[in-house]
């Protein structure tokens, strides 16, 4: 599970810090098992995620997952971000996910599936992202 890819993102996470400004939509999740928390903020430009960042504390899996998330969804259409979240979820459940659906660094999360107690750690930033996108949908005029 502790592949170099995960450790690299953990040591130097990308996308740290929430975007600022009135147009930020935020999702927040807590892991009741360990008390860790995760906030993900997005700014949309039309149907595209123009800016994304996270704030929180967590284990290497949570932090690496959040870091990879920001790389993966920045400047991507909202529908694609949602599809990516679904693909990550499938990966974490141990399902086979095709390379076209989910590639790059994120594939390193596949190892987490073997540790059911840790799946929640990897999932947390993605749930926070979906919350943020949901909030954005709710407030759109």
């Amino acid at each position: 599970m502790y592949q170099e890819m995960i450790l690299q993102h953990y040591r130097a996470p990308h996308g740290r810090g929430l975007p600022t400004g009135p147009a930020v939509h935020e999702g927040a999740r807590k892991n009741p098992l360990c008390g860790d928390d995760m906030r993900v903020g997005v700014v949309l430009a039309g149907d595209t995620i123009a800016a994304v960042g996270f704030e929180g504390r967590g284990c290497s899996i949570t932090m690496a997952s959040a870091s990879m998330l920001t790389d993966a969804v920045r400047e991507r259409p909202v529908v694609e971000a949602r599809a990516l979240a679904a693909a990550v979820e499938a990966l974490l459940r141990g399902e086979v996910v095709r390379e076209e659906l989910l590639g790059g660094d994120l594939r390193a999360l596949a190892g987490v599936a073997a540790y059911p107690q840790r799946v929640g750690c990897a999932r947390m930033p993605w749930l926070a992202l979906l919350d943020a996108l949901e909030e954005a949908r709710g407030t759109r005029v």
Partner: protein
Amino acid sequence: MTDMTHTALAPRGDFPLLAANPLLHYLDSAATSQKPQTVLDAITHFYGTANANPHRGAYALAAAATDAYHEARETIAQFLGARDSDTLVFTRGTTEAMNLVANAWGRTHVQAGDEIVITALEHHANFVPWQQLAKSAGAQLRIAELTDDQQVDLDHLASLLSARTKVVAITHVSNAVGSITPVAEVVRLVRAHTSALLVLDGAQGAPHLPVDFDALGVDFYAFSGHKLLGPMGIGGVIGTRARWEECQPWQFGGDMIEWVHDMDSTWNVLPHRFEAGTPNAADAVGLAAAVRYLRALDMTAVRAHEVALLEYAQERLAGMDGLIVYGPPADARSGVLSFTLEDVHPHDLATILDQHNVCIRAGHHCAQPLMRRLGTSATARASFYVYSDTRDVDALVHALVEAQRIFAPVDA
């Protein structure tokens, strides 16, 4: 180095799970203990020879079940120093015991304007029942703060005590960091300043320290069987007769009644008044076997064994970079090593240790108010018991070094 052999106080072979997993280093006994074969045998023996509903049949088998249950109560009460065994009420464990006291005594005695005093060390089981009682009664919850090494700050505790204090509920031993409460001192303070109900959470006291209820001077003492080599689902609370008399029944049904009229009922005597429904007789019998096992080991020896392991662990870990160990020195601490390691989240530690067959707990230990005060969301916790030995500690240290290697920051 402390002069110590590798031997545990109790042979691993007595514990089927440990015997079947010779490479396993089980260091999570504060969460639940492993069970000796004698306990499993006692439960099987009850179901195989004496199974009937206690108190409810006019036949010999039912009498055998009733006798076995009664005998278990006597054995356990005696082990915890209560001469009057009818003052021991069985519950599912400490959590249910605290809810019992908060309801059976608290609901009728705590009123608006009163105060309930707890401490920042408490397990949620001895925190939330009082918090919620205070809320519903309009009373004020007061929290005694801690010293820098996570012992109850007795000066602060004393400053909270007044004629308004109706309940003082405090842990005997902290599950999260191991601090042992100086009970005699607390009793003296509470009795000097209040006429409050004094409740001790013995979930971690009963398994690890000699307990003499009649000498302690507290009103209620709660415990969980599964933490002292017994089965899950059984525990209890011992109270003084005078305090039990002040309690109202809190759960209603079979066994706890004396007579049921159409419009009202009268209540059975202690302890049955507070044990509604079919009791968990089989697990009570199992727990009695567990306390016989502990009695044979001798609780003073149990305590000494844990202190020796704790000191051995502290020596092995001394000088480890980035290691913070919480709690007081070994003479004021139970066999609990609660710590954080710089750059390694407790969850990551637990996973890596698991890969080395070392079972520890990582998390908030059901003590979120304490974690907030420590300024962390979680700690890693290794905890010892009678079957632990220095090899377990060695495996822990080895795995910690490995975790540190994996997570070491890469030099720029």
